[in-house]
């Protein structure tokens, strides 16, 4: 009778442990989830635009984000609605962004344009162009960014 009790208890314990373990499994980060969903569901290239910044921002840094949003809203509003372009501004100082900051090795202000297509990623670093042009020659920066996004969307 005692051994019959053990036969009943072991499966119950096993199921309970399995259930608890699956509850504690760390969920993938939101960004990875977003990227994977896009990559799997889309048969066309998808462009992710990440702007990284610190909490204390200089005028050039602010100008880069502003000009990037202007580029997207002016030239790619439709693609953004379709989910083919995604923009995210991420604070490097926020520990919740550690994973993506490490992936892009973003230690300060940085602008990356990433193409997701057929399970592959291509990334262009436009940080230098941003610092060079965004504040005092916005049109030039918008042209560079627009060309890069267009290239990635149509590749």
């Amino acid at each position, binding site marked *: 009778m005692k051994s019959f009790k053990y036969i009943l208890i072991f499966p119950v314990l096993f199921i309970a442990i399995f259930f608890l373990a699956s509850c504690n499994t760390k969920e993938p980060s939101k960004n990875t989830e977003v990227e994977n969903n896009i990559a799997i569901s889309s048969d066309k290239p998808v462009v992710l635009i990440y702007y990284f910044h610190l909490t204390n921002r200089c005028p050039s840094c602010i100008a880069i984000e502003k000009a990037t949003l202007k580029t997207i809203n002016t030239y790619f509003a439709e693609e953004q609605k379709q989910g083919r372009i995604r923009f995210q501004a991420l604070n490097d100082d926020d520990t919740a962004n550690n994973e993506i900051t490490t992936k892009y090795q973003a230690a300060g202000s940085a602008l990356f344009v990433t193409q997701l297509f057929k399970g592959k990623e291509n990334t262009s*670093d436009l940080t230098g162009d941003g610092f060079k042009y965004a504040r005092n020659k916005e049109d030039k920066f918008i042209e560079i960014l627009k060309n890069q996004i267009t290239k990635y969307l149509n590749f």
Partner: protein
Amino acid sequence: MKKFLIVLPVFLLSLVLFAQVNQKPAANPKLKVYYFHLTNRCPTCIKIEATTKKVLEENFKAQLDNGTIVFQSFNVDVPANKAICEKYQAYGATLALTYNKDNKEKIEDLTNFAFAKIHTEAAFVNELKIKINSLIK
């Protein structure tokens, strides 16, 4: 005394402006390393300039002393620097190398490289050293 209090700041201001106006590009060295920046600078921009200077001073001291290489930095916001900023298309932080090839002046823009690599300082230093060495041969 009142006059002196008015004259002194004006005198100091004119000294500062005079110093900025006199940031003229160097005569004719083999390699010009120019760094452009705005008045309000972020830590990354400051680090690029400081590390570039460090690379030059630690590895190319003799060339700096004999004029083979010159380093200069320009404030983009200073009107006196407008012409050189236009030439280098430097409207914000910009790192550029200027050299001669086949009797023609060539400009290599290292801004994207600088902002991409500066946070891994060893890589920045190493690649900049190789680049400079190749241009002063």
